[in-house]
């Protein structure tokens, strides 16, 4: 992986490097060969007005169980395209993506998706929206009803279960969306700039919720964002994509999220370390 920015722009401190290969409270295992998802030499081109345009080029990395990966990059770098490939909405032009060693051929419930504009079904109540997945999959009624209450509780929406979707605020909608995806117990949760449209206060609270869910469930999360601070506050690993075509230009492990959870370090974003990481990443992205 590229170490160029560290060499050129930043002298990495020992502390930070020591984060690598650490298992977070047993929730992460970064053992080669035990990866959940492996992305191998993925290219994606589409046909534009002036011939083929390359959106992604030679993407190579593994996703390990329990990781919270945030993908950062300037707009138009193809990060959402990468998520779509993982979800199975589109197929790569070249290369392969494997889940548990099996090539991803289409869309299924093993990879839950939280969209930027949550496509909640307005014709159903909040409860029915959350229950949608298990109901479709033929989970017995008793069981999915129990699960629904459980997941509503997890996203703090129990008292809004019978509301109509149009009665919810943006943050609540995103919480329904998260519960709806999690209830299927997918192997990985794919989140595509889920909080981009929310106001700052709401965003902070859903970030906290997401972090908490990650920690408590040990779920693997693949999270797209263009907000460096958000990435640092949530991720256990940050991947940076370049612009046109999207290539991986940085892949580092961070542990601010873990510190917030374990030490209650709520003001960590004012720490010099955090500031340093933020500056470096920003500079890297802006240099694109």
């Amino acid at each position, binding site marked *: 992986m590229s170490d160029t920015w560290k060499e050129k722009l930043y002298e990495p401190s020992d502390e930070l490097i020591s984060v690598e290969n650490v298992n977070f409270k047993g929730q992460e295992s970064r053992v080669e060969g035990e990866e959940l998802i492996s992305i191998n030499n993925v290219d994606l081109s589409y046909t534009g007005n002036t011939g083929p345009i390359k959106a992604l080029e030679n993407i190579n990395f593994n996703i390990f169980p329990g990781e919270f990966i945030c993908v950062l990059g300037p707009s138009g770098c193809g990060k959402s395209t990468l998520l779509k490939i993982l*979800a*199975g*909405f589109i197929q790569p032009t070249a290369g392969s993506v494997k889940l548990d060693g099996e090539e991803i051929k*289409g*869309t*299924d*419930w093993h*990879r*839950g*998706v939280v*969209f930027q*504009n949550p*496509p909640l*079904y*307005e*014709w159903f109540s909040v409860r029915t929206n959350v229950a*949608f*997945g*298990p109901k*479709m*999959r033929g989970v017995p009624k008793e069981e999915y009803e129990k699960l629904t209450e459980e997941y509503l509780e997890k996203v703090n929406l129990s008292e809004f279960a019978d509301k*109509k*979707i*149009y009665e919810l605020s943006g943050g609540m909608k995103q919480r329904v969306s998260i519960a*709806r*995806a999690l209830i*299927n117990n*997918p192997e990985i949760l794919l989140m595509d700039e889920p909080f981009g449209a929310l106001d700052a206060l709401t965003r902070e609270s859903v970030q906290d919720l997401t972090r908490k869910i990650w920690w408590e469930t040990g779920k693997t999360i693949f999270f797209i964002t263009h907000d460096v601070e958000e990435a640092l506050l949530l991720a256990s690993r940050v991947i940076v994509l370049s612009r046109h075509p999207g290539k991986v230009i940085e892949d580092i492990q961070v542990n601010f999220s873990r510190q917030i959870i374990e030490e209650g370090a709520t003001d960590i974003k004012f720490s010099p370390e955090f500031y340093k990481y933020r500056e470096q990443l920003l500079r890297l992205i802006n240099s694109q």
Partner: protein
Amino acid sequence: MKKWSTERILTVGTVVVVFVVWFLVTAIGNVSETIIPSPASVWESFVDVAKDGYKGHTLLQHLATSLQRLVIAYLLVVVTAVPLGLLSGYNSKIRAILEPIVEFYRPLPPLAYYTILVLWMGIDEGSKLALLYLAGFAPVYISCVAGVIRIKEDYINGAKTLGANKWQIFFYVIFPAALTDVFTGLRTALGVEYTTLVAAEMVAATAGMGWLVLDASNYLRSDIVFMGVIIMGITGILLDRIIRFVEGKVIHWKGRS
């Protein structure tokens, strides 16, 4: 007294103006009764026809006959055009089969193919219903197709990631998501069927509002023609209101998301 909005006043005002102009024109304009019958004679013919009927049928029977044709044809449209339209929007192969047929006959004036329908199905109810059915089918089909195509991809992708199969997506996502367009189509279809009603009752009808208007115009009875047209207009508005009411009940989320 309830406060009236400016729009409401304008609407009511327009109706009042039309009536006043109608009255004045016939009262002072020295216009022949054949061209514009006076409101009084139209009212008289209404009372007459309501009391004694028109050519063997009461006014209610005429109205009921037409409404029966309309409702039967309309229900046939609902149970066929809605599923076929939605499926065509969902599956491009089905669309490839059906769309050329609908596109071909849709712009044809109903009278152009009515004679063929009469040849095939006879002069009884069959050909009339077929004409109304074909008139209503196209707008419903087309707006159903458009309704499905307009659905945001994330709705369908989302359902797939949650584990829904093709048919589940069709019933639980595509169908409800397209409902707004389905209803737009249904309302248009009702209007189109209504305008086709007169044509449908041209051949061998002995009752029906369309036939009443046609027959009265055969005998230059403009008073009855006016009456018939007004009754048809009001009925048309009422039918549209009914559909809008049903729409409001079914699509409770409309305009709020």
